[in-house]
């Protein structure tokens, strides 16, 4: 399985677990196929059939006190463009306008190769625009780019925490992670290894 593993002190890497994708599509065939594409590529998958259900799910996730340690944290949203009710474009806008959700990368899927449509999606902050039918190679490429940005984010958080740990008083506890054993004195310097 391709993941980035961290040897580090306080953080259980959320990306040594599977990346979690929320897929949105009104077509039941496309939902079945995208789910399989993602599972085969070692993603954890949640599939919903509309933009409003997607927002419901993301809202619930927020209520569950999501943090980077939360198993349910969504790492990527993939949405069909043409859906009845809320379109994928409208969903994209809502996500990018939300202070809590805007960091989640959003990918648009569409059967139509319309340049103006592609442009507006990218302008609204879409990570990518995939032509349907989506292929395994598309998903693999996506995974690589998400892992890269997650890796960068982890390194950023890690260095921030290291700084905080160096600054903090002994009695305060910053680390919430209980599943990683307490650091030994001879902790090796954190490094990123891509498997």
């Amino acid at each position, binding site marked *: 399985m391709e993941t980035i593993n961290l040897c580090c002190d306080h953080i259980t890497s959320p990306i040594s677990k599977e990346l979690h994708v929320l897929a949105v599509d009104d077509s039941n*065939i496309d939902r079945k*196929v995208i789910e399989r*594409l993602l599972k085969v590529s070692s993603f954890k998958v949640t599939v919903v059939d509309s933009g409003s259900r997607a927002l419901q799910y993301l809202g619930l996730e927020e209520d569950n006190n999501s943090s980077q340690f939360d198993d349910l944290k969504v790492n990527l949203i993939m949405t069909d463009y*043409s859906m009845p009710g809320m379109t994928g474009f409208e969903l994209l806008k809502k996500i990018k306008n939300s202070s809590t959700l805007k960091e989640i990368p959003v990918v648009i899927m569409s059967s139509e190769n319309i340049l103006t449509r592609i442009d507006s999606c990218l302008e609204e902050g879409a990570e990518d625009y995939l032509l349907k*039918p989506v292929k*395994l190679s598309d998903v693999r490429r996506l995974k690589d780019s998400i892992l890269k940005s997650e890796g960068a984010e982890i390194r950023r958080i890690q260095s921030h925490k290291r700084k905080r740990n160096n600054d903090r008083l002994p009695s305060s506890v910053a680390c919430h992670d209980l599943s990683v054993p307490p650091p030994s004195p001879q902790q090796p310097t954190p490094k990123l290894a891509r498997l």
Partner: protein
Amino acid sequence: MERNQMQMHRQIATIRKSLFDQGYLDEQFVQLEELQDNSNPNFVEEVVTLFYRDSARFLYNLDQALEKRPLDFSRLDSLMHQFKGSSSSIGAKKVKIECTHFRDYCNARNTEGCKRTFQHVKKEYTTLKKKLEAYFQMSRQAGPIETACRPR
């Protein structure tokens, strides 16, 4: 492997190849096959079964919509767009092509063109469905190739 089983598998392979050679199926069908494995041994047939179900609904709605006068071209186009999407998702190449022709006539607001091409869409769909049903039935009868090849 038993000779009969080998023959069946060869037959199935020939049928499969002809579906591609004659343009009924495209690369997307191969992509579905690549997603099938021991943990999901019937994936392709499951997706195709979903396609039959969806198609029955789309074609019925299109039939109904084509009875109305005047034609609601926007609704017809929307329905056909969805049906075309489903067809594309399973690699139904000829069906997809006919869907495109239908949408062209929709855009041109050509009633006769729409009615005519809809008959072509239905014909291609029915043909493909028959061929795929026969193909999957044969595949089921022949059993998995791995089991057949493994020595007992």
